[in-house]
């Protein structure tokens, strides 16, 4: 039961990543692309967690935490750049 759920969830997350890539390539404006990148960070964390479940190891959760932090900081930085024209004033 767990195997089927794991593979279904993985397929759904990969489909979500493909939709994010579509929005990243098409997105008419800059905030659309930032939003697509932010969602890609979250979806890649989901994929890492699923890989940890699949390989039965906890080693990759540190990288998931790192990706979460760096994704938030980069989103904030690019938004600040678009808002103010500068990141650290």
């Amino acid at each position, binding site marked *: 039961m767990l195997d089927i759920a794991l593979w279904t969830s993985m397929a759904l997350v990969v489909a979500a990543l493909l939709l994010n890539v579509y929005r990243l390539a098409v997105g008419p404006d800059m905030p659309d692309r930032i939003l697509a990148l932010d969602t890609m960070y979250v979806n890649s964390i*989901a994929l890492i967690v699923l890989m940890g479940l699949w390989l039965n190891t906890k080693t990759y959760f540190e990288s998931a935490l790192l990706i979460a932090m760096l994704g938030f900081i980069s989103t904030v930085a690019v938004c600040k750049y678009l808002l103010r024209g500068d990141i650290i004033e």
Partner: protein
Amino acid sequence: MTLYVLLEGVIAFLLIAGGAFAFIGSLGMAHLRDFYMRLHGPTKATTLGIGCMLVASMLYFWVIDGKPDIQEMLITLFLFITAPVSAHLLAKTGLHLQLRHEDKTRGNPPELREEEVGEKPVPHPDRGHG
């Protein structure tokens, strides 16, 4: 024995729900029409999806190892704190850049209204005082 079967069912349900919510969020982001609508999908549905998946992972490793692990809880907490902040910043960026919006988008904040400069005569503030 029955407990393990029950826990496996709960973990499988949380995994499926997480994958479905993540997919629905990204589908909304790819499908909706303007930026202010697109912001809704990833910020709410995807966050709930990843929360479901992390809780499923925490339960799984709790059952396997016999003791709870703090790391998944930490990732969940961090994501749930940071998602509204980044969504707020993205909405502010969209309003600042005055992105194109559909007529059906409700709210009509002052940043998106048409400029009224020079269209109507402005009454003089001193009128009535001579």
